[in-house]
């Protein structure tokens, strides 16, 4: 039976390559990635690395890849915060809070995310937000309009490197502090406020570094012109819509995962913690959350993967992510097989990295029994 399956698979593979070759030759095309070095010739509305119309296709795809990572990271952070908030709210003793959380989850989870993206984009952002002329201003430094959000752009001058050095040393110092605090707590039982300690380090060190260099940071504040703005950091409306829609939609999934995790912690654990004299906060931080995390993290990682994959919906509203730029390239060159395989390989790599992270975490957090 195995042999039969292998034979059938090989036969299919043979058939497919045979057909592909004949089809490609019929359409006067060849298979290969040489086109990647050709000049792209189209503009991209948002690029994190220098890009111009003259750049190559591979550069354009790289820009798209970075945009995919950007939108995924933003959404993951926002959805996590919102999801934890809603998940905890759903278990709140206050029935109104629990009800509002349930309402939120049941509504946003049962409407397709693509529809939500369209609503945010074409309804809220393009239609309800004012034109740049009447943009909503926040303290006259940031503006919100249907062309997107415009914020001050920090420009790092000479010497800003000291701030970076400070940050790096603060991270190293913070890790050392946590290590030492754990060691001391394990050996003597005395706790140390490691969270606040390392947070203080992360704030103080870069500040000192920058102070030493004389604060070489200036801000490029956007200025109102007749119809629009000049300068500043522009967040394009597509990014805003995608960010809002994906964060709000996936927060419902995270909230459900968090709720399941907290409910999975046996009530006896809380009671025992109270009996030992821990305060409510201590019980939550030291007993409930660590155990809940063990249940929450695996679904959380797959939700993160889902967010990364769903960021490909950007193509529907024209945010230049990997898929949208790949689609433009596909239209220009007709290299369907090459582009679809590039997409798939990149997404597969992201998935593999994330799932190996999950396995690492699972192994670390696994209950060691006997």
């Amino acid at each position, binding site marked *: *039976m*195995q*042999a039969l*399956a*292998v034979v059938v*698979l090989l036969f299919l593979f043979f*058939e*497919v390559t045979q*057909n*592909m070759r*004949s*089809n*490609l030759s*019929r359409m006067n095309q060849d298979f290969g990635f040489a086109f990647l070095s050709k000049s792209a010739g189209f503009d991209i509305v948002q690029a994190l690395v220098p890009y111009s119309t003259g750049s190559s296709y591979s550069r354009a795809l790289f820009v798209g890849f970075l945009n995919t990572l950007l939108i995924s990271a933003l959404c993951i952070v926002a959805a996590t915060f919102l999801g934890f908030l809603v998940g905890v709210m759903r278990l*709140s*003793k*206050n*029935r*109104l*809070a629990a009800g*509002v959380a349930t309402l939120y989850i*049941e*509504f946003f*989870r*049962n*409407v*397709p*995310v*693509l*529809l939500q993206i*369209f*609503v945010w984009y*074409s*309804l809220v952002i393009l*239609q309800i937000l004012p034109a740049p002329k009447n943009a909503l201003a926040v303290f006259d430094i940031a503006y919100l309009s249907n062309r997107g959000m415009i914020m001050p752009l920090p420009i790092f001058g000479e010497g800003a490197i000291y701030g970076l050095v400070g940050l790096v040393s603060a991270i190293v110092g913070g890790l050392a502090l946590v290590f030492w605090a754990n060691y001391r707590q394990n050996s003597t039982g005395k706790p140390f406020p490691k969270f606040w300690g390392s947070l203080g380090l992360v704030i103080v060190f870069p500040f000192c570094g920058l102070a030493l260099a004389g604060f070489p940071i200036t801000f490029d504040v956007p200025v109102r012109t007749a119809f629009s703005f000049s300068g500043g950091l522009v967040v394009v409306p597509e990014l805003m819509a995608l960010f809002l829609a994906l964060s709000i939609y996936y927060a419902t999934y995270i909230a459900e995962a968090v709720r399941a995790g907290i409910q999975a912690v046996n009530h006896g654990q809380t009671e025992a913690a109270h009996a030992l004299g821990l305060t409510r906060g201590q019980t939550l931080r030291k007993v409930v959350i660590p155990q809940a995390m063990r249940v929450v993290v695996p679904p959380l990682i797959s939700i993160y993967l889902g967010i990364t*994959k*769903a960021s*490909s*919906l950007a*193509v*529907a509203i024209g945010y230049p992510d990997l*898929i949208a730029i790949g*689609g433009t390239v*596909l239209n220009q060159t007709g290299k*369907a*097989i090459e582009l*679809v395989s590039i*997409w*798939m390989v990149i*997404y*597969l790599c992201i*998935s*593999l990295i994330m799932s190996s992270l999950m396995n690492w975490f699972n192994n670390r957090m696994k209950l060691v029994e006997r």
Partner: protein
Amino acid sequence: MVLATYVRDLEAPKLPPPSNLKSIRHHLRENYFSSLGSGAMTVVLGSLLLWLAWRIVGFAIIDAVWTGTSSEACVSTDGTVIGACWPVVSQKFGQWIYGFYPVAERWRINICAVAFVAGLVPMLTPSVPYKMVNVVYLLVVFPLAAFVLLTGGNFDLSPGSYAGVVCLALLVAASLPLLIFGVDEGTSRNSLGLALAGAAFILWGASFISQVDFTVFGVSLDSGLLSVASGCVSLWVILSDSVGRRSRALRFWSVGIVALLASMLLLDIDFGLVPVETAQWGGLTVTLVVSITGIAASLPLGILLALGRQSNMPAIRIMSVGFIEFVRGVPLITVLFMASVMLPLFLPPGMNFDKLLRALVGVALFSSAYMAEVVRGGLQAVPKGQYEGATALGLSYWQMMAKIILPQALKISIPNIVSNFIVLFKDTTLVLIIGLFDLLAMAQTGLRDAAWASPVTASTGYLAIALIYWAFCFSMSRYAIYTERRLHTGHKR
């Protein structure tokens, strides 16, 4: 003498009354104002909720426009606030449901919908008997009838295809003696039939690889004659024995071939229906066609993949794992793009796939990988003793799976299977990216209509569409919860 110190000399304080006697005030205090923070939260959330409810009611009911024939009804001339523009929904509703399907032919979709609901409701109601008949209706009769009704049927199958199906069925018949008498006895009894079948198979394969007169069912003359001969011999071997006449395998085979020929005939007959190309389909019809086909195809595929992943055979396991992990690692859009732009390149020249069909293949394959993981979870949750017990009773692999393991595994995974269905239903919106007109795409096209251009057209339309999707998804999730409770026969803690 002094009383012992442990004897109480004061009366114990009275206990509070039981909770069912508590006043509303107490209830409010307990659940909404138990502490300062809780009270503040109640006030803030409550006012937010009231504000939101007021806005929604104001938009959808109080300020809404209910009648009108064009956008003029929905454009405010004297500065009054205008809420939802409901006439646009009633005007476009037909298009949302039927897409570009010819208006005169819409009754065909209606009949399909009624036939589907008529099959689905008894299927989903646990107390209705004849579930097996119902399954056959839903999985065989209804799809065929719906296919003929929706496309118009009359496919002009060539006589060669009938011959091809008969030849294939006779070729398959060669394996029947093996099933009925066991492998050893079957081989010795039917050596002639098997040899003929093998020869036919080799000839057929050779003509296929060398691409000589290849058509879908076009079995070339030599291999066709050989398979007819092999089938006749095999059937004679079976029927000349008294055991064979009562065999279930034989019955299945004959029912199968009759059903196949009957369905081909059904597709062939000209019912006088106007043919409607799938390019004209749209709206909720396409959404439902894609999602129902996806659901119906992904569950069995997913079960097979999950079994393959748990299989002892390394080649099968590797193939299943590879497929599942690959599909789960990429977004649905790339799979749809693959189905729409790459699939035509993979097929032999001249073989043309319909756009809708390509999307269907993509959706079904994609969701089968997720289904496989859900079913695998269920398979792993079945205690090992069940597998061992079934093996000890002498059941074969398929008997064990069909009668012992899968019923338990599927029962455990029902909630996850349904949530997968819901995800699939929501994901069908993605087909608009490859140019199919599902409900969402149809609505968007309709909302761009210049005749209905007004500031509230888009918000009204999106609200209505969101409610339609929400109603489908929410009812599915409620049904899942209901089934979960009903099937929970175990010991709930």
